[in-house]
């Protein structure tokens, strides 16, 4: 934390120095109005690109209507200024805030389709909304229609733009590295796994849309009071595309990349201005060329960091100190126990009765009954296609059952969203590993701690004390958990760089981090060799004891299942054909028949 604060101090100092220098140069006339104008346009473009990066780069949804939000903010701010009846310069911060809020309201409305839509369809919806905003501005009287709005006082100056750019960028950084930012990133990486890790994905989709819209609205307010004249056609599809290009060219997900691209793409047309009608031709060629030769963007997913640069320059350490690396040893030992011990009489944790689901005419599962007690290890076996994973999907409400009840500690959870089921205490892994591939091992686990932290997005953004204490605690716990799986040395590696076995373990660790009472493991030993399987068996037993969780295990490896399960459920063609101890199952003729017939 002290290191972090030092780094903040360094950045703030650098920002202040840069501001002083720039103001001096402007005052001296060394930066004339022309260059100042370009700087202001670039600043506004940076806010637009960085905010769009939140939806496109961090949330991973293609949004094609960002300029529409800017338009809403611009018009709202301009109308406020023209009707306030006070000196518009003194209330300007309020004006910008208002522009932002107006745009945020629209962002909220547009975020709602995100409940249902994904990918290109969502992209088209955002395009549609953006165009509707433009058509409405053209049709409304108070906006001046196609004639545009004129006579807006030109209040926007270097100080406003500079401070706001610094502020927005800072917010994006701090928000991005809080539990809320990680939640948004997890949706980009894998929405299904995010839900299963307890992230309310719908909420965070809308949250990201709204925040992005808010900042676009602020940029709109600045723009209106810079240009002085508003033209509804300036907030159309092509403008949105311009900002999209900035984000992609900068490297999706990289904030500093978006900043560099915004600077380059604002300066480029200026440099080309004397080519007059050849200008856009050259611009388009450069655009294609840049994309072809730097397909990952100017900076890729990396971030430029001042502290990183300094340490590189002074060679104090071979590479930049990675994020949040402070704790391991000392803190870990005094970390609190991960769970309170459970009662000894092993109450019923989960009971499912007459559970069934149909896909069209296909009965994937019928009349499935199971009861799991606290701390128990239950196996779920059956030939391929028997419906084992379907059981998991029903228990976690990835699919809604067509019949039956699921009770967790006596409470019916049918129809409860997946992330809430996770909070109730059911966590799972996936048959085909679903990690947050481009995030670090540590972040994979910390995302699952989301609901065990309470600090709000505002506290996270402003780095208030609760952020520090909760993050430190989460770090400590994450390292502790990773050590159980022997992954602590890999904590800073990207999840997809891990070997296969380690990825399986990480997925289990992530599921455990949600603090479950019941852990659903879907073929954890798939693809492992006998030694690894032995190792895994020991780990599972260890988990069961140490974390006090019950386990429902899907597995094909009979030695594993027979070795650790107390009871076993056998499924065939969506029907439960047997339930009993490993010995009973081994002798059950129906089970033998199903397996001999099946294989």
């Amino acid at each position, binding site marked *: 934390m002290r290191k972090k604060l030092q780094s903040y101090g360094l950045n703030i100092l650098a920002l202040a120095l840069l501001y002083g220098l720039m103001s001096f140069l402007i005052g001296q006339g060394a930066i004339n109005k022309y260059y100042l104008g370009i700087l202001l346009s670039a600043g506004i473009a940076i806010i637009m690109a960085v905010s769009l990066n939140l939806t*496109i780069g961090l949330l991973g949804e*293609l949004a094609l209507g960002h300029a529409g939000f800017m338009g809403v903010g611009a018009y709202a701010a301009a109308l406020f200024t023209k009707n306030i009846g006070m000196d518009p310069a003194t209330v300007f911060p309020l004006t910008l805030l208002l522009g932002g809020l107006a745009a945020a309201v629209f962002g909220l409305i547009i975020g709602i*389709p995100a409940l*249902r*839509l*994904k990918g*290109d*369809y969502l992209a*088209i*919806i955002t*395009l*549609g*909304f953006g*165009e*509707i905003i433009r*058509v*409405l501005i053209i*049709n409304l009287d108070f906006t001046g229609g196609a004639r545009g709005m004129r006579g807006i006082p030109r209040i926007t100056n270097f100080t406003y733009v500079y401070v706001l750019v610094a502020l927005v960028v800072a917010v994006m950084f701090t928000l991005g590295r809080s539990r809320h930012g990680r939640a948004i990133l997890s949706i980009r990486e894998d929405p*299904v796994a995010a839900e299963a890790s307890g992230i309310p994905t719908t909420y965070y989709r809308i949250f990201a849309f709204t925040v992005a819209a808010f900042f676009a609205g602020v940029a709109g307010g600045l723009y209106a009071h810079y240009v002085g004249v508003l033209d509804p056609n300036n907030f159309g*599809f092509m403008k949105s*595309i311009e900002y*999209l*290009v900035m984000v*992609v*060219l900068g490297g*999706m997900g990289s904030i500093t990349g978006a900043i560099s691209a915004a600077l380059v793409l604002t300066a480029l047309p200026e440099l080309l201005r004397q080519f007059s*009608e*050849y200008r*856009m*031709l050259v*611009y*388009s*060629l450069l*655009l*294609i060329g840049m*994309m*072809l030769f730097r*397909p*990952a963007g100017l900076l890729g997913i990396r971030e430029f960091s001042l502290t990183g640069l300094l340490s590189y320059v002074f060679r104090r350490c071979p590479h930049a100190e990675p994020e949040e690396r402070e704790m391991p040893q000392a803190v870990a030992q005094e970390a609190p126990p991960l769970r309170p011990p459970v009662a000894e009489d092993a109450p019923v944790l989960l009971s499912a009765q007459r559970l069934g689901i149909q896909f069209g005419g296909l009965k994937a599962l019928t009349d499935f009954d199971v009861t799991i007690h606290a701390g128990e290890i239950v196996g779920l076996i059956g030939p391929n296609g028997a419906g084992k*994973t379907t059981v998991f*999907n029903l228990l976690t409400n*990835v699919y809604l059952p067509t019949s039956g009840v699921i009770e967790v500690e006596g409470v019916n959870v049918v129809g409860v969203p997946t992330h809430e089921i996770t909070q109730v205490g059911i966590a799972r892994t*996936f048959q*085909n590993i679903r990690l947050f591939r481009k995030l670090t091992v540590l972040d994979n686990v910390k995302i699952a701690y989301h609901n065990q932290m309470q600090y709000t997005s505002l506290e996270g953004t402003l780095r208030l004390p609760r952020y520090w204490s909760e993050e430190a605690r989460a770090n400590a716990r994450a390292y502790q958990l990773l050590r159980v799986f022997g992954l602590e040395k890999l904590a800073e590696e990207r999840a997809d760089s891990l070997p296969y076995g380690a990825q399986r373990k990480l997925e289990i660790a992530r599921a455990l981090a949600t603090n479950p009472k019941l852990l659903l493991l879907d073929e954890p030993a798939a693809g492992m060799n006998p030694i690894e399987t032995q190792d895994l068996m020991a780990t599972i037993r260890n988990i069961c004891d140490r974390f006090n969780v019950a386990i429902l295990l899907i597995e094909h490896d009979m030695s594993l299942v027979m070795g650790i399960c107390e009871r076993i459920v056998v499924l065939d063609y969506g029907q439960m054909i047997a339930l009993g101890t490993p010995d009973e199952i081994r002798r059950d003729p129906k089970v033998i028949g199903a397996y001999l017939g099946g294989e």
Partner: protein
Amino acid sequence: MKFLQQLINGLQVGSIYALIALGYTMVYGVLQLINFAHGDIIMVGAYTAMVAMTMLGIPFWAATLAAIAVCAALGVTIDRIAYKPLRAMPRINSLITAIGVSLLLQNAAQLIFSPNPQTFPSELKGAPISIGGLDIGFITVVIIFVAVLLMLLLQAFVHKTRMGKAMRAVSEDMGAAQLMGINLSTTISLTFAIGSALAAIGAVLYCSAYSRIAPTMGALPGLKAFIAAVLGGIGVLPGAMLGGFIMGIAESLTKGFISSQLADAVVFGILIVVLLVKPSGILGRRAHEKV
């Protein structure tokens, strides 16, 4: 009466959208790429046909063929230069080069032909056809007929021929198709060639109906056709057709009976409502994600 007239107006606009949407949907179906340059290929087709007729003096049908050839070649070239190197990257990268290509074509055309609109010398002229007191323009009939015919031909091609099956296989799973011995590169080039050839036919019909060509003429019909393709369920050929007709008719009826000022807002509103009710478009298949 007025309703029927507006319906026919809508059908004509819709047929044009449908023709262009077919090209969008083909490329999208195979590569999941929104080919933003598709609208500008229409523009190139229109200028090619015009130059062929006015400067080279060749007849209308031959000029149409020339436009088809030039557009098909252009489509394949664009794919090879601007999209193919990025196949392994996220799709959004190709989207950006597509935007770059679109800007390039528009600005190049503007330099060569000047930004002023010009007249397209159409020979598709004939007396309006009168049915029960309704006048239907000759060109309207031709456009609707050609659009439906092409859709049927394309549908047959995709489902009945070897190349068509290869195309569907690639769209289903590129990797698996390659393992089955399908030549990926040829199949994708063919897709671009056919999609762009359709754009050329669309261009000739469009210009015959509206007799006006300009460097930015492709942008708006391109955008609307793309939306039509999404509305109908992108990647599905009859969906593109249906989406095109719905867009055209919705536009026309909105202008006729609700408000010509708000037509675009209403059309986009319909799109949003449809997608909210059926997220994969009207005829789109819902992709079930395997968990």
